[in-house]
């Protein structure tokens, strides 16, 4: 059987590494800083988009801000109408509206200042979350539009799957103080596995999910 060719950004840690393990029987190619792919710049993104042309699956996992959108848009435009799959690792944070963010900053600031996440000060953490939310919100909107377009005009091809987990226990999470519950990486992958195995019958395109494990930092 011909192996699927799978491209994963941020493949060396957290969810990216879990995806690399999940597809270990296929031909997996990783794109991370550690192997020279700093995707925080346009030329690297363009090079990666070119590289993806003969791949079957693109896992757009690395949280590289606006470049995550560029990668999605670039790979999608090359793959329109083809039987391939793009998986965006987004976040439930995409559902936070600007109004909610303002209210929440008031609510979260004391906690954020009390406990520090991922080596940041409280104010830095708030700033990081603000930018992170904006970036995921943009990715989410773009994905929704493109999913509708692909569904209406391109025979649902490629299959776009947007995964929007709540806090997942990876290195990135640090001492997350925001949510009451967490997903672990296995829980995340079990949701993905479910969606993946259903794809011939039903195409899941957007999944928001929350863990059930108590957050030890709360």
């Amino acid at each position, binding site marked *: 059987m011909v192996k699927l060719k799978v491209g994963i950004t941020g493949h060396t840690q957290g969810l990216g590494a879990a995806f690399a393990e999940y597809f270990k029987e296929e031909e997996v190619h990783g794109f991370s800083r550690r192997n020279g792919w700093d995707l925080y710049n346009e030329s690297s993104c363009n090079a990666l988009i070119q590289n993806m042309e003969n791949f079957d699956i693109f896992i757009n996992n690395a949280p590289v801000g606006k470049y995550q959108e560029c990668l999605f848009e670039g790979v999608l435009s090359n793959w329109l109408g083809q039987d391939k799959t793009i998986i965006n690792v987004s976040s439930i944070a995409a*559902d936070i509206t600007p109004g909610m963010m303002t209210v929440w900053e008031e609510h979260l600031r004391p906690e954020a200042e009390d406990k520090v996440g991922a080596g940041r000060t409280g104010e830095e953490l708030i700033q990081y979350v603000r930018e992170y939310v904006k970036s995921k919100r943009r990715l989410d909107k773009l994905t929704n539009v493109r999913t*509708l377009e692909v569904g209406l005009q391109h025979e649902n091809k490629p299959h776009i799957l947007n995964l929007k987990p709540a806090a997942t226990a990876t290195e990135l999470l640090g001492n997350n103080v925001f949510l009451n519950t967490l997903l672990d990486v296995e*829980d995340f992958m079990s949701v993905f596995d479910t969606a993946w195995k259903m794809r011939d019958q039903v195409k*899941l395109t*957007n999944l*928001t999910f929350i863990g*059930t494990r108590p957050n030890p930092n709360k």
Partner: protein
Amino acid sequence: MQNLKVAITGHTRGIGAAFATYFKDCEVHGFSKSNGWDLFREESLKALIHNIKDFDVLINSAPIGINQLKLFDSVFELWEGKDKSIINISSIGGDMDAKIIKDFQDYYVEKLDGGENAHFPSVLDLEHYITNKVNLDKSSSSKVLDTNLRQKGLPYILNLKSGAVDTEFLHAGPSNLMKHYLTVDEFMKVFDTVWKLKDTARITSITFLGNNEVNGLW
């Protein structure tokens, strides 16, 4: 699961009827026009909300315009912090925003043939339908975030946002907008999978499309 008390709006047809079958071992109560519950009317809606206190699960299925949102908001308020479940039958239309609606207008104006029995006799009707689903989704996603921050994620809220499903509703209107559809069985398989995963990961919103070609069927 046998001991659950389940309320289903629009329980006599389509997806609502499939939920009644799914929960047949539970105590199911249906609320539809055919048994005197015209939920487009405020007094019926208020009576249902008054009745809902000791239920465990609400399947908010009937497409009753803005009253579907009112029902969700009111039941959420009554059930906040309680180990109960609200399942909203929304639509992929909920992923649209004003800009997407405008962008797609030419497409659906061309495709929509209306007709006196159609659920969407005019573009305005379709836009109202989409707007109601967008608002239901927004309300739902903000409550999901809020309950997870403050209330340990209870009640469990699940928004099911499918593409076209093969029910009477599809035949009567939007069929030629879509290229693919889901059968009711496929819809319920997605729900069953999500429902069984809820102790590991709580999927709070799921968008999904069918693989069956509409072409020439209706």
